[in-house]
């Protein structure tokens, strides 16, 4: 078969030299290409900022290399290599058929949307980049080959983040920002329009500029070999890294190599401290760790420092890779802590006329610290379905991404044709032939292993009674839920909302993936009236039950937010608290996971919410704690 291997990239692209601005990104890319030892580069930025265009435009700049792309749909065997099917068929021998990593040897490997690449593939890929060797042990093949490449990744942090370990493997990091200068923006518009109208003509205008770039790259590579690193420079590098509190020693090496490339690109055969400073700008930002922060407020510190660098209001995310900050010695201390919303809760205005029946709508306290719902899936071996980002599980429905094959365990349900063929191939010369070219036997059959991310389902049960409306409590509660919703949004969870007040409980929002809607419901949620806690739990119970009926694999989590001042029983004359507790026990019996957030802040605490939590087998948190800890640990008790 004639294979059109990724050489679409030879096609016409928007010229590198014609990209307006983005000097940092351009320089980082050139450093990476000049010196592969600088560890490649990760380009992060919002959508539509020419990230991919810049990388793909390198094709025409590179003198002797190709850009090999690793698409997100790649299966593992294609990345690492597998058995050569045709050879096995004709010669009956197992021979290694190279994958993308083999093709990438000596070239540039480009992963677009690197943060969406599957974790296992990404880890193995980075391992290979680190060692320069690809080791394959799969499908009866044992093989190793050299694989040295310059890794370039692009990502949009809004879509998900990379862990610190993964970030650390990239030598350099550069943030792309949109252009805010009107003149430059107009220039961009003009160029893009001109390119789209007549690409050939446009590219010809930049031919000289592109050739100059290629030549300077070639020249820099020659100069690079002559640059010596003095002990003083090594000390400087170590100082930089120590100031940035970067873990491990990769940083120093990357820093020196990047600095060499900076000097080489400037045509200098020796290093200057300025080169080091420039290199630090790319090598250190994603490795910086805050050290001064006292342990409990760690997260907050990080956030406030992020705000400091946050020049364009980028959506804050917990693990957002840092923007390119000035080198550490220039960076000041975080002087001011962001307002602590806990104080806010404590220093609430004195109770006004606390009329419980009065209806009001509290707004959302958007300064509430990021509360996160942390679900530990201890043993998630159950086969699940669903779509989301929080947990990655194997799925045996014929959905999800085909990642690898395995021997069928029992009945074969999802045949992996390619793997089956490969398994059968080496024996074809020995087997009798029928009408087909290949005879497949039972023992060749392979099953597809598919993976799918599933989100969790959270059902928020919110007390909207008059007592909750007092002292702006609802504002804080809404703030807490809001921050949890934000977390859910990023992880593609499903959410539902049940509120109870006056006589009844109401499903305000059936479980949906639209976190947006949940937020709107929350915004409009009024408070006032009595507290039918048992009623609320009963309604939630019905919702959860019907949900589990519909989708068996779903493990919904109940989040109860209440002050526990239950004062309305199901039957008239009954004990409201006892009702609630018995409902809670029913919940526990049914095996639903739950968490209770107690908002009781009055001087005399009744502690009903805690009792309910105990009866329900729920994790228990006080609202104040929430603003300190920010993470709710819910351990799923899987049956």
């Amino acid at each position, binding site marked *: 078969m004639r294979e059109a291997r990724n050489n679409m990239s030879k096609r016409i692209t928007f010229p590198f030299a014609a990209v307006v601005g983005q000097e940092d990104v351009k320089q980082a890319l050139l450093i990476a290409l000049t010196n592969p030892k600088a560890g490649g580069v990760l380009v992060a930025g919002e959508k539509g900022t020419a990230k991919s265009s810049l990388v793909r435009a390198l094709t025409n700049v590179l003198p002797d290399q190709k850009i090999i792309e690793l698409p997100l749909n790649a299966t593992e065997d294609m990345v690492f290599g597998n058995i050569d099917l045709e050879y096995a068929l004709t010669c009956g021998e197992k021979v290694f058929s190279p994958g*993308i990593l083999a093709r990438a040897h000596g070239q540039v490997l480009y992963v677009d949307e690197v943060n969406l690449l599957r974790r296992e593939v990404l880890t193995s890929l980075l391992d290979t980049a680190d060692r320069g060797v690809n080791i394959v042990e799969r499908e009866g093949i044992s093989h190793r080959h050299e694989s040295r490449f310059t890794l370039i990744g692009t990502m949009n942090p809004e879509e998900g983040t990379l862990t610190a370990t993964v970030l650390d493997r990239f030598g350099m990091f550069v943030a792309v920002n949109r252009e805010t200068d009107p003149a430059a923006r107009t220039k961009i*518009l003009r160029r893009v329009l001109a390119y789209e109208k007549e690409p050939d003509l446009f590219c010809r205008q930049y031919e000289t500029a592109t050739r100059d770039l290629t030549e300077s790259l070639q020249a820099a590579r020659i100069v690079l070999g002559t640059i010596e690193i003095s002990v003083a420079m090594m000390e400087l590098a170590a100082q930089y890294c120590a100031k940035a509190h970067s873990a491990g020693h990769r940083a120093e090496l990357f820093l020196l190599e990047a600095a060499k490339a900076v000097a080489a690109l400037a045509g200098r055969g020796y290093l200057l401290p300025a080169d080091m400073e420039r290199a630090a700008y790319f090598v250190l930002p994603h490795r910086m760790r805050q050290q001064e922060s006292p342990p409990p407020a760690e997260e907050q510190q990080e956030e406030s420092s992020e705000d400091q660098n946050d020049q364009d209001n980028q959506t804050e995310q917990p693990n957002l890779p840092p923007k390119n900050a000035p080198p550490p010695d220039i960076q000041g201390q975080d002087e001011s802590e962001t307002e602590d919303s806990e104080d806010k809760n404590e220093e609430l205005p004195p109770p006004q006329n606390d009329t419980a029946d009065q209806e009001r709508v509290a707004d959302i306290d958007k300064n509430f610290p990021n509360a996160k719902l942390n679900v530990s899936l201890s043993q998630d071996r159950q086969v699940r379905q669903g779509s989301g980002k929080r947990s990655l599980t194997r799925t045996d429905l014929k959905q999800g991404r085909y990642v690898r094959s395995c021997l069928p365990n029992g009945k074969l349900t999802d045949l992996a044709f*390619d793997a089956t063929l490969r398994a059968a191939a080496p024996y074809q010369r020995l087997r009798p032939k029928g009408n087909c070219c290949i005879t497949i036997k039972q023992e060749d059959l392979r099953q597809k292993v598919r993976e799918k991310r599933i989100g969790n389902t959270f059902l928020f049960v919110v007390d909207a009674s008059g007592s909750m409306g007092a002292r702006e409590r609802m504002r804080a509660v809404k703030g807490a839920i809001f921050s949890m919703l934000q977390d859910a949004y990023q992880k593609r969870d499903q959410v539902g909302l049940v509120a109870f007040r006056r006589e009844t409980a109401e499903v305000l929002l059936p479980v949906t993936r639209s976190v947006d809607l949940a937020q709107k419901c929350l915004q409009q949620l009024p408070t006032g009236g009595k507290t039918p806690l048992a009623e609320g739990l009963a309604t939630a119970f019905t919702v959860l039950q019907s949900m589990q009926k519909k989708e068996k694999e779903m493990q919904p989590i109940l989040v109860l937010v209440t002050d526990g001042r239950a004062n309305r029983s199901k039957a008239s004359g009954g004990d409201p608290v006892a009702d609630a507790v018995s409902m809670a026990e029913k919940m526990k019996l049914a095996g639903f996971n739950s968490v209770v957030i107690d908002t009781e802040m009055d001087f005399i605490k009744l502690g009903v919410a805690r009792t309910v939590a105990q009866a329900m087998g729920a994790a228990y948190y006080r609202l104040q704690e929430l603003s300190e800890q920010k993470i709710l640990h819910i351990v799923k008790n899987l049956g």
Partner: protein
Amino acid sequence: MRTGVYPFTAIVGQEDMKLALILNVINPALGGVLIKGEKGTAKSTAVRALADLLPAMEAVKECQFHCDPQDQHHMCEACVEKNKTAALTTQSVKMKVVELPVSATEDRVVGTLDIEHAIKCGEKKFDPGILAQANRNILYVDEINLLDDHVVDVLLDAAAMGVNTVEREGVSYSHPARFVLVGTMNPEEGDIRPQLLDRFGLSITVTGEHQSEQRVEVIKRRLGYEQDSDVFSSAYQQEQAELGKAILQASRLLPQVTIADELLTLVANMSIKLEVDGHRADITVIKTALTLAAFDGRDKVTVEDIKKAVRLALPHRMRRRPFEDGVLNWDVVEAMFQEQ
């Protein structure tokens, strides 16, 4: 194939939706359109009806990807090879609407190993998927917000680059996949990923007609169509033909349409002021304005074109944090037009 398609021109109201779709037919480089609306607002009907209005195009004969014989930059490998040795034989094919069902699996979307060929001949061969069919056509995803995350990923990839790169199940292949992405969604059923949202050139929100006369007209036409679709359709033949002609004329005029520098600056300033993400917004506004001018038979873009284009291209690009409504502040826009 085209039997039972409700005529595009017979759709009552929904002018924005119709305009957005037509603009994309005139200029496939606009980047598609996302149609948001409640159920039963003729979203799908309009997209499917579009098929009838689509122009014919030249394509390489027997090419799986219907490559454009004139466009060497976006040809598949096979056509590039053929083109080297001899002139390509071409045929005229109608542009079509290719549907991507929500339940589609990734392998069917990007293409995969041809099993039959592998078993019969013992050779690997690429079996093209929906993205191959969609090349140079309209790719329609109904309920796009319900699409599986990983299918969205591959869709984004292809939409961005115009190339589908496949590395799976033993096949390594890449082919052109430039399509007009048309999606419909009911926002009540969940949101759409911001990154996918940004890939859509235009976005519009449809609502049901509120005037009772209009509503009656909708019912009348629908009943008329269901009674006898042929008779009904023939009543609109003339209108359909005229619109088809207008589209063709506009696409011929499009390359000649020019835009003044002040207007470029105006759009750039607006994007900065409104803090939209990235640069796709400005580019799309300008392209939309150019297409609007062409559709109107003019070769110069006017302020009115820009205004209309902003309405179509900006609302879904307003910077929004999760949960904050990204609303297009029309006052700001108006004020900027006033200054002009």
